[in-house]
């Protein structure tokens, strides 16, 4: 057992009777996690240093004089670890009882209830009844600034928040004041964490309800929320996130670990920009232009006349795309333009003057581009026009006399006479806009929160997102009608699934060639790097 030799890079140890081989330098806690055995812990967080102060991850190591904190004890060759032995379990039960000596039993009014580590651990292995008769200490609640509210009574002093601000944000705003039983997290200055661009993460890493989000306060219970893996659409970093939804509304965004992109974190800029996904003003049915305005119809009722108009050929084709739509929709638009004889596709995207890096993990940065898919649009041969606030640049197109296609861009700066001179104006969008007034056909499309697809982030990483909300009415993912039209024009077969629609992007741009949904997975894949599927 564990006879690996000294020059090996791996060690083999036994945890609860199961043998596991891990790289040298792995802690017992991480080795146990590799076995699927999650040792209870508070102060340890994979993205932060481990001070071994919560005393919850103590395990029995054979031969050691006393229980060892598994979060800082390196796994040794031949080590025999017991996490469920009498002494380890008894220690955990005792430590949990000490936590509950001061932790209020206010789970009914606590926002963390349902995703609280103290709740989980005490439910699993705590005492049935508390024995403490002394009054609990009371701190009350404190505004930490920004989006963060602090309930001092609930704090278990794991200091994850302090270490995040020190190590990751490298902007020490929090500290521990007082000693012993009275010790508590506090801010240095009046403003607290106000203005710190990554402070929302301390709410995520707080294992109990001590740090809660003001935005989410009392909004929903944790067990009511559905979690859907997605990609943050607020900048070109492409942070992996979970959309937490309830009643078909996005309630909050939480980072989803991806060590290649955002580690365990996301910025406050992205975290708080989700309200537009809940907008109620939507285009719900296809619209066809009549003499006195738009008339609602159904998909067959719009696609047939639209196809007829496209076949007639109404002059040179120009198209406006949006960097908020998926690679699949962009590729479908490019195919349609190609089928119509080709033409220039432009897009507009907002750009910030500054980047906001996370100092402890500088690869995570709020990027210049405040759109999720600028890279994807550029790979597919589209050109960026307009100014840095995502407006203007379409003056020439407003008076275009040929065929005009608009995908996703709300054209907020343009009036009802946009496209009035076009011989055929097709608008695909989610939200009603005055600029679609002159459109001959308006097709309702879903937002990225309502469909499956991929974005390409700043470094060319293609990442998948999944539908979290139900789209309104007859709205469909934009790639579906676009690729159907393109296929009918060319007399080919139209993709019926989103993964087939993605393969179309590979046919258009060599960068996407070889990529497929199966190989992208949940971690994303860089364009032109893996060659899992054969070409063609």
């Amino acid at each position, binding site marked *: 057992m564990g006879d690996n030799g000294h020059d090996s890079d791996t060690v083999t140890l036994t945890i609860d009777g199961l043998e596991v081989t891990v790289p040298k330098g792995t802690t017992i806690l991480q080795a146990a996690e590799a076995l699927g055995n999650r040792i209870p812990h508070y102060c340890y967080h994979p993205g932060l240093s481990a001070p071994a102060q919560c005393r919850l991850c103590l395990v029995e190591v054979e031969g050691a004089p006393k229980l060892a904190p598994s979060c800082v004890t390196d796994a040794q060759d031949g080590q025999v670890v017991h996490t469920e032995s009498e002494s380890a379990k008894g220690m955990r039960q005792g430590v949990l009882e000490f936590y509950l000596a001061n932790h209020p039993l206010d*789970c009914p*009014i606590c926002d963390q209830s349902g995703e609280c580590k103290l709740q989980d651990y005490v439910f699993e292995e705590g005492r049935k009844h508390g024995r403490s008769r002394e009054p609990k200490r009371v701190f009350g609640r404190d505004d930490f600034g920004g989006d963060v509210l602090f309930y001092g009574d609930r704090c278990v002093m794991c200091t994850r928040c302090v270490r995040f601000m020190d190590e990751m944000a490298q902007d020490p705003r929090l500290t521990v004041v007082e000693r012993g039983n009275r010790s508590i997290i506090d801010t240095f200055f009046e403003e607290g964490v106000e203005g710190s661009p990554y402070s929302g993460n301390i709410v995520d890493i707080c294992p109990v309800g001590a740090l809660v989000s003001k935005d989410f306060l009392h909004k929903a*219970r944790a067990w009511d929320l559905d979690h859907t893996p997605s990609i943050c659409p607020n900048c070109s970093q492409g942070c992996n996130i979970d959309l937490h939804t309830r009643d078909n509304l996005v309630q909050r965004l939480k980072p989803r670990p991806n060590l290649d992109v955002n580690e365990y974190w996301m910025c406050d800029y992205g975290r708080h920009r989700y309200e537009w996904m809940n907008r109620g003003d939507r285009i719900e049915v296809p619209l066809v232009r009549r003499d006195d305005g738009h008339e609602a119809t159904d998909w067959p009722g719009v696609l047939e006349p639209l196809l007829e108009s496209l076949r007639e050929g109404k002059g040179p084709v120009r198209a406006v795309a949006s960097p908020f739509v998926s690679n699949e929709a962009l590729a479908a638009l490019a195919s349609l333009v190609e089928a119509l004889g080709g033409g220039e596709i432009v897009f507009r995207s907002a750009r910030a003057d500054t980047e906001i890096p996370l100092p402890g993990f500088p690869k995570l940065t709020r990027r210049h581009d405040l759109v999720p898919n600028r890279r994807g649009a550029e790979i597919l041969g589209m050109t960026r026009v307009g100014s840095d606030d995502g407006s203007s640049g379409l003056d020439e197109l407003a008076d275009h006399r040929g065929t005009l296609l608009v995908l996703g861009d709300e054209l907020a700066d343009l009036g009802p006479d946009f496209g009035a001179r076009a011989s055929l104006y097709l608008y695909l969008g989610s939200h009603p806009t005055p600029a679609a007034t002159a459109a001959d056909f308006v097709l309702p499309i879903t937002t990225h929160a309502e469909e499956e697809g991929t974005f390409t982030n700043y470094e060319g990483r293609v990442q998948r997102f999944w539908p979290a909300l139900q789209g309104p009415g007859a709205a469909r993912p934009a790639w579906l009608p676009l690729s159907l039209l393109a296929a009918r024009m060319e007399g080919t077969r139209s993709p019926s699934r989103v993964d087939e629609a993605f393969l179309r992007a590979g046919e258009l741009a060599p960068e996407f060639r070889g990529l497929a949904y199966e190989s992208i997975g949940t971690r994303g894949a860089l364009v032109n790097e893996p060659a899992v599927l054969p070409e063609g």
Partner: protein
Amino acid sequence: MPATVKVMRRPEAGETSYLRATLKGMALTFKHLISPSRTATVQYPEEEPTISPRWRGTHVMETHADGRPKCVACGLCPTVCPANCIRLVGGEDDMGNRYPIVYEIDEFRCIFCGMCQEVCPVEAIHVGVHFENAEYTRERFVYDLDRLMEQDHPSTLLWDPSDPRSE
């Protein structure tokens, strides 16, 4: 031959005749007709029927002495409700306490199982000892927070294992 054969006894003539049983039953009926001392019929609505203290009827929301509802919007009753008849939107009152901004119970969907009362950590929502709830419209059966607080009938006693008959 099968392993087990049950030999059935054929009933005798006295047993197959139902005359004796019929006469016995009619005797009981006539006995009650003559002595109506143990009538089961209650002359409702002139007479109020007695309801068990564990009757589970129309809901009651308990209030604090100052008139605020005891509910803290923890969300356990809509979670546990098997009929999905409770709608709750949490928020904060002017004193900074968690508070139900919207609390509605659809008494039509309710199956009066009493689990909302059992699960409530602050003993706010109760099923009540009450059954007379007639209305002219269906909408009136969706009780909002104010209406639940106005209910003045007694709330139900939960079953106590040490006192199984609620005595």
